[in-house]
């Protein structure tokens, strides 16, 4: 039985540090994410975005600091967290010998979804992602964009309360990217919280209620896209990043 936890913030991070031997990937990160918010994590590759998501989704233990997701501690209650979140990893991982439908239904089963609900939700998501007609083909034969969309469907099939979407639109064609944006907006409309990691400036500007800019494991700015642009006298978030770090985000990709 899933217990309901009382919490102030959907996600709360305090002085979070993660070190890998002599590399500090996350360096004293602190921020909160409110329920129903789309929170954009913006930064170049290696900035610490994915490490932070891995800690919040229970894959990695922090070196120090504290983080709670839906009120559950990431160190001691990771199973509780995993029951209620969905993760679309940066590198799509899928079972190549299963069809698109089977991949999505497998994740639904691992979240113990009832059969009828699983079938309906899978159909809806596959249609929404434009995969309805190819759902019975093995994913090993899918294109890169189709794999991305399947991975997103796998993350969302069980209607998670928080969706961690790590670079969800990389490799997608413009049409699929638009469909994905619509899907993310629909999650917000249904009261879901979305943590969106991206290095696409326009994606963060279009979707995020607030953006946290991260560089070398530190949070260097946090506000709404508009407020950040106004504060730094910038025309877009790319300029904000340049003003803050002296570099472009996408040069380092």
């Amino acid at each position, binding site marked *: 039985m899933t217990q309901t936890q009382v919490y102030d913030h959907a996600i709360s991070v305090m002085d979070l540090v993660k070190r890998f031997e002599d590399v500090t990937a996350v360096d004293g990160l602190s921020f909160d994410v409110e329920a129903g918010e789309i929170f954009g994590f913006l930064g170049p590759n290696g900035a610490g975005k994915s490490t932070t998501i891995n800690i919040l989704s229970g894959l990695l233990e922090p070196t120090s600091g504290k983080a709670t997701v839906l009120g559950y501690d990431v160190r001691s209650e990771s199973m509780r967290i995993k029951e209620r979140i969905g993760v679309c990893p940066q*590198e799509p*991982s899928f079972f190549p010998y*299963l069809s698109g439908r*089977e991949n999505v*239904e*497998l994740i639904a*089963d*691992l979240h113990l979804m009832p059969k009828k609900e699983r079938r309906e939700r899978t159909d809806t998501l596959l249609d929404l992602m434009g995969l309805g007609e190819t759902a019975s083909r*093995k994913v090993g034969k899918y294109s890169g964009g189709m794999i991305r969309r399947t991975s997103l469907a796998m993350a969302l099939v069980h209607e998670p309360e928080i969706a961690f979407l790590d670079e969800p639109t990389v490799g997608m064609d413009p049409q699929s990217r638009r469909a994905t944006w619509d899907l993310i907006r629909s999650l917000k409309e249904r009261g879901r919280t979305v943590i969106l990691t991206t290095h696409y400036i326009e994606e963060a500007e279009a979707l995020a209620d607030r953006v946290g800019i991260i560089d070398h494991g530190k949070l260097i700015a946090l506000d709404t896209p508009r407020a950040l642009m106004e504060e730094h006298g910038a025309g877009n978030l790319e300029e904000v990043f340049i003003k803050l770090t002296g570099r472009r985000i996408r040069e380092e990709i």
Partner: protein
Amino acid sequence: MKLQRLRSLVAKDLKRVVREPANLFMAIIFPLILTVAFGAAFGGIGSGSGDISYTVGLVDLDASGSPEWAEAFRDGIWATGALVVAEYDDNETAHDDLLQGSIDAIVVLPEDFGDSIDSFLEHPNDSGLWVNTTIGLAVDQGSMIVGAAVPPMIMQVLAQTISESQAMTFSLPLEIGAPTQVASSRLTQFDYMVPGLFSYAAIFLTMNVALAFASEREQGLLRRINLTPTSSSEVIVSSVLSNIAVGAFQVALVYGASSLMGFRAQSSVLGVAYAFTIVLFLVLCNVGFGLITASLVKSSGAATGISFIFILPQMFLGTFVPVSQEMARFVPSFYVTDALTSLFLRGAPLSSPIIMNDLLVVAVVGVATVAVGIAVFQRFGRG
């Protein structure tokens, strides 16, 4: 542990076996080809004939005052040149060895063996004063030669013992009981290989399991599952269950294919089910070896190579390759092949101490190996 998760993960694993050609080949096609090929190559070759000797188990129960007759009888058996004597204290041990194929026949000298001969020699023409008795005889009919040749040879030795005559031209107070026969058909070289083929198929599951876990870890699939509320125990137990299912299918496949190639198990349906159970413990053992292998290696390529550390000793020491039993006792497959040989070729009863011992060894080793494999994989193998 949730049934829905286990069912779903087992289905996923079985689909991998069926849909990925390399897995399909190793799990299904390879044992099938091996069985058919061996059946075709060795099915026509008999179990051998020619100038060889047969071992007769002698159970001397003679409690009479003339033990010299039993000694003379034993010497007579040796003197035939075709028979070798193995002495036993009791009938049960001798019978077990006959079932195991260690000896070819049993002769049981009754308590009044000496008295009977004495009575005949004292009153050769007065049968009313003879002590009548029966010599027990059992032969392994697995060898048709033994079944046909040993009873008359024993009869001849008895006659020679009593009268030093080569022919039985007179009646005696001793008769040789109708031979108890271990029913079996004529065994071919292939028949002797079949028990090893069952083990052979199961042994290669080490590679399947190691490859499956190593490649899923390599592709980030274990990590993907780890993003769901699935415990590592559920992942491992589902793998154990799916591999047991594959192992059961392999056993059925080898049994079906070997039957088509002429093999006939000298065992009841219960015996066959018993054999399946023993093989499934070997499957369990090799799932454990696979988990250990997957924990030791970094890549799926290395998994293939390292898995042979477990496969080769089992293959060469515990299947159908003739090696010294002392060395073979270190590998679990030996006990499976040994038990299946007794069940299928000798028609040994399920309660046979040797089969029970084999089952016990392979069950303990199987459960222990899979437990170690799970512990090692949980500690080092999840990536």
